[in-house]
């Protein structure tokens, strides 16, 4: 249950904290790529287990940004 980078870029802002509950469609990370803000939303509801990539880190397309535990 992961939120992955839709394109390569740098993590600009992480909008959630471990333990936080997120809803489907909620923005959890904003990437910066091609000098554009790329909001990344959760595709399902859940609880944040881990922030895998911190602010300023480079990520390839498809890499895990945030790990979610599915909502019960």
């Amino acid at each position, binding site marked *: 249950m992961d939120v992955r980078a*839709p*394109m*390569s870029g740098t993590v600009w802002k992480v909008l959630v904290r471990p333990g936080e509950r997120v809803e489907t469609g909620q923005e959890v990370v904003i990437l910066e*790529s*091609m*000098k*554009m*803000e*790329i*909001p990344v939303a959760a595709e399902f509801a859940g609880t944040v287990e881990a922030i895998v990539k911190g602010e300023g880190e480079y990520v*390839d*397309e498809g890499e895990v940004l945030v790990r979610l535990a599915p909502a019960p």
Partner: protein
Amino acid sequence: MGERERRLIEERERIRQGGPPRGHERQRAAGKLFVRDRLRLFFDAVETETGTFARYDDPELAADGVVTGSGTIDGRPVFFIASDYTVKAGSVGVRHAQKFLAAQKAALRARRPIVYLVDSSGARIDETGGHHVDPGSIGEFYYMHSLLSGAVPQIGVLYGTCFAGTAYTPVFTDLLVMMKDAAMAIASPRMVEVAIGQKVTPEALGGVEVHAKKSGSVHFVAESEEEAAALVRRILSYLPDSSDGRPPSAPPVDPARDPEEIDAILPEDPNRPYDVRHLIEAIVDAESFLEVKAMYAPELVTGFARLGGEVIGIVANQPAVKGGTIFPESADKGAEFVWLCDAYNIPLLYLVDTPGFMVGTLVEQNAILRRGRKFIFATASATVPRVSVVVRKAYGAGIYAMSGPAFHPDVTLALPSAEIAVMGPEAAVNAVYYNKIQAIEDPEERKRLVERLRAEYRAGYDIYKLAGELVVDELIPPKELRTQLMRYFELFREKHIELPRRKHATIL
């Protein structure tokens, strides 16, 4: 009525019942309609039919598993080829293939659209033997599809699971509707397992998720057979009968959003995303936008619409997805859509807001240059009226593909939010003054220098400055965009230009 006439009508009626009861049961169990009920969703009536008596010798092979003929959609005659799954799973026997080819050739001679309703398990292997390569066999379908391509519209609907041979018919159509539970693949799961040892379900191999989102091989997905038929009727409303004609006009309708809203739709901050479909709603006639390949490479929006009642094709960067960056997939999508519109005399509107083509190792390996070239090539070769609107960012080579000034659009309009540059200020300053910036040790001083250089760079592409240098033809207030576009497409309706003499380009 005399006996011989009565006999003919009775025999025809028997054939029209389709396959044996077990065939009908199988079709019902799969939640699919019998072909003749299906055809009623498209046409008020089947007006002509040929080859009804194919395989008259075998009562189980009614019409040899395919209905071919014509009907009327919105007052226009349209050919169709529709598989009958109740007859040996719609498999393609020898006569079936002959009927299919006859209908394709008739559509080409008549210069009328053809609709393919595909619900077939593939070649009837016991009948075909090695003759699937003969002229007049299933092998010739794809030759004819190729000759029809761009001459008359070929629209497809994929109903069932369709593997190998017959899976090519769907992908040769100009526009393909796929039922949500259909599947197509070059080989069935059974074949895949034998050939490479992979175990896979039809859905995972070639279901809607695969083809609508990942492979980009289908244009629309339908939830029901009624929806599929309605989509086909709607698709045809944007297309002419052939490459000789123009798309039909309709009464003009006001847009769904007031064009006065356009300025507010576009964020002040050039790096902020917004949904370009809101902009489209404020330009085109209400309810007229039909997005094509909405689920594939959504960073580029493509679709048909009406502007003051006249059909246009729209190619728009989508800043809400991946910042509107052009990827190899979106380049393919754009190239094919532009090519389709040009083939059927549909004028093109480009809405430019892109930071350019994507960069980095992944896209290089995915041939961003070679596939980006296709998009640029398609635009350069499109002789239909073309209008390019610089909505916001036009960085790098992105604007080439988006019909920028060097690509001979009929006019390039810019909104006051427009920015045309080789690259954004951050990247440009870093590229040009890297050594100079790095040489400064004090971080504060370095920051001040970067800020000053960026401001200088920005001033270089100020849109008033560029309008002054005639880089764009006109700078217009956003609320006037719709009316200006209507005027320009009207002005250039009779446009005629010739490409250089040659057989064809070498780019595909």
